[in-house]
């Protein structure tokens, strides 16, 4: 779960990571200007990267200018995301910008601490030799030598090193305790007065750890309404650009089915992974969800190893009857009890074929939108 900047900064503040003085605004006239010193920065709260270049960050010298810009921003769309909230912050007097991030290195199976004296730019564009990189051992965390080496690499003064070391330690504590997948400060600003402040904040929390972080439950996420509904039902569901709805069991098989579709000239509109279920109720839910995504055709690809094909077929049949689904359905169903399954499906008016290639071609023909 990706957090909005203002939310991430609230978490930062809890860990004593300095953030600019700010207010969150939903309507332009909510902003009274008394809480902050001018000039201010007005930042759109959207979950897409590169919002600065897309016009999502503006400056204002006085209250009138600020309200005008807030108003424009609140009615705008940044890279396809509607702006519902803006964060107004005191503008920092920037002397230096650095980068600090902790992410997950999958190859090393370890957290990776990254830092650079060149902040404010995309970290991918910073040359390797200018990056400080250190894998962190989970049980040891940030040891003093790591901070000494980081300060040396970034050529920080003694005073800067002290302040930034404190922030790095706090950031790791946050990463660890909040079950973060990624936490990033870009830029971490050193002001002309020598203060160190997190000007931006990026924080992604592991969805699978939300059971121990109820405070993040129900936060606005970057999901379509149907994706939200699927999430509540525990179904892996992703809306894509095409028109053919693909349902399969297992993430790998669902991806492979979408790939196969595109080799034959079709285009997937929905990725729906049933997972390891053969519970007819869950299958029914999945089909009804798919119906509401309005595909031109539904392509079902089931391999029954432990999953029983016939109980999946019953769920499909029930959904078609209850949901009065008139979207054509093509099924390729193989494995445990496949003959029974095909019979059930054919009786429900579904095209049931033997190979995935046949199914894909049939779906493209029937879809044809």
């Amino acid at each position, binding site marked *: 779960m990706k957090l909005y900047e203002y939310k991430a900064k609230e978490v930062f503040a809890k860990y004593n990571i300095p953030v600019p003085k700010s207010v969150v605004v939903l309507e332009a006239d909510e902003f009274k200007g008394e809480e902050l010193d001018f000039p201010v920065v007005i930042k759109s709260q959207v979950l897409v990267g590169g919002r600065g270049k897309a016009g999502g960050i503006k400056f204002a010298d006085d209250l009138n200018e600020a309200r005008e810009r807030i108003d424009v921003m609140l009615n705008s769309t940044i890279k396809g995301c509607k702006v519902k909230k803006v964060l107004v912050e005191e503008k920092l007097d920037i002397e230096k910008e650095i980068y600090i991030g902790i992410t997950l290195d*999958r*190859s090393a199976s370890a957290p990776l601490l990254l830092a650079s004296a060149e902040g404010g730019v995309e970290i991918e564009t910073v040359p390797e030799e200018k990056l400080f990189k250190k894998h962190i051992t989970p049980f040891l965390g940030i040891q003093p030598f790591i901070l000494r080496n980081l300060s040396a690499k970034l050529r920080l003064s003694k005073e800067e090193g002290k302040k930034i070391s404190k922030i790095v330690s706090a950031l790791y504590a946050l990463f660890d305790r909040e079950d973060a997948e990624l936490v990033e400060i870009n830029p971490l600003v050193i002001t002309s007065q020598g203060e160190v402040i997190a000007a931006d904040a990026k924080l992604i929390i*592991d969805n699978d*750890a939300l059971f*121990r972080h109820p405070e993040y439950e129900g936060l606005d996420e970057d999901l379509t309404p149907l994706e939200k509904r699927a999430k509540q039902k525990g179904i*892996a569901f992703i809306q894509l650009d095409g028109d053919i709805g693909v349902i399969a069991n*297992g993430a790998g098989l669902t*991806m492979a089915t979408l790939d196969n579709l595109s080799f034959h000239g079709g285009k997937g509109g929905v990725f729906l992974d049933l997972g390891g279920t053969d519970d007819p109720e869950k299958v029914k839910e999945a089909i009804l969800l798919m119906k509401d995504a309005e595909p031109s055709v539904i392509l079902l690809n089931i391999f029954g*190893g432990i999953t029983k094909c016939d109980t999946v077929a019953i769920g499909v049949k029930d959904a078609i009857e209850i949901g009065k689904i008139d979207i054509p359905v093509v099924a390729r169903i193989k494995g445990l009890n496949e003959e029974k399954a095909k019979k059930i499906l054919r009786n429900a008016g579904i095209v049931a074929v033997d190979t995935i290639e046949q199914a894909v071609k049939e779906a493209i023909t029937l879809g044809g939108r």
Partner: protein
Amino acid sequence: MAILVDQNTRLIIQGITGHQGIFHAKAMLDFSTNVVGGVTPGKGGENVHGIPVFNSMEEAVEQTHANTSIILVPARFAKDAAFEAMDSNIKILVIITEHIPFHDALDIITYAKFKKIRVIGPNCPGVVSPGKAKVGIMPSKIFREGNVGIVSRSGTLTYEIVNAITEHGLGQSTCIGLGGDPIIGTSFVDALQMFDGDDDTKEIVLVGEIGGSAEEEAAEYIKEMNKPVFAYIAGQTAPPGKRMGHAGAIVSRGKGTAQSKIEALRKAGADVAKVPEDIPKLITEKC
């Protein structure tokens, strides 16, 4: 010979009295796996299909001299179960559970490295050596003894490929499901190394997917191998930034695309199939 699991496997099932535990205990027994015990705290003294249930891993290992354990407990209890297993002198630990928080997985895998314990998973279907043992939840019927070693990041897609290989008249030495999570105990490179040293394995099938760089790292190793490798990569049409069902299946910041993996594998000399069904054909054509 096969790898990881065979006739010498002495298996404990953690979570044996749960719905999944009871079902898969039977399936593993029927596959002639030497299941020596199960563990469910508070249910010691009971039995499941004649398998004795113990209260703790320590007690179970002491009584049965088990060397392998499989975890079939819910995600929020999996870390505790894994640490309990690793502290009881188990050598191989297979974690089936899906949705384990990745910080928990980090802790488990870091500790496993210290203790030199082989962890497979989490979020995996397990390991099968046909004719010898099954430590996992893969469907038994699709396997046949043979010489193809299979290593994969997914579940059902693997069954599909195993089944196609069997229907084509070939068989498997060992089939390993590595797991669909970003943090997993055993990598493609680990599995390739084991298959490379296994006399029963003549050909290797690698089933990868988008996300991470494990397939690219595997490609580096494949360059040095003599045994032929056949591969399939899922997610060629997946949009960037979306998690395609598996926590680990995500193209982020332009990294982890199927195209990059396919290219690396081809350059290393592997045969990459366009669709999974083509794999058996590619094997018989070449071998």
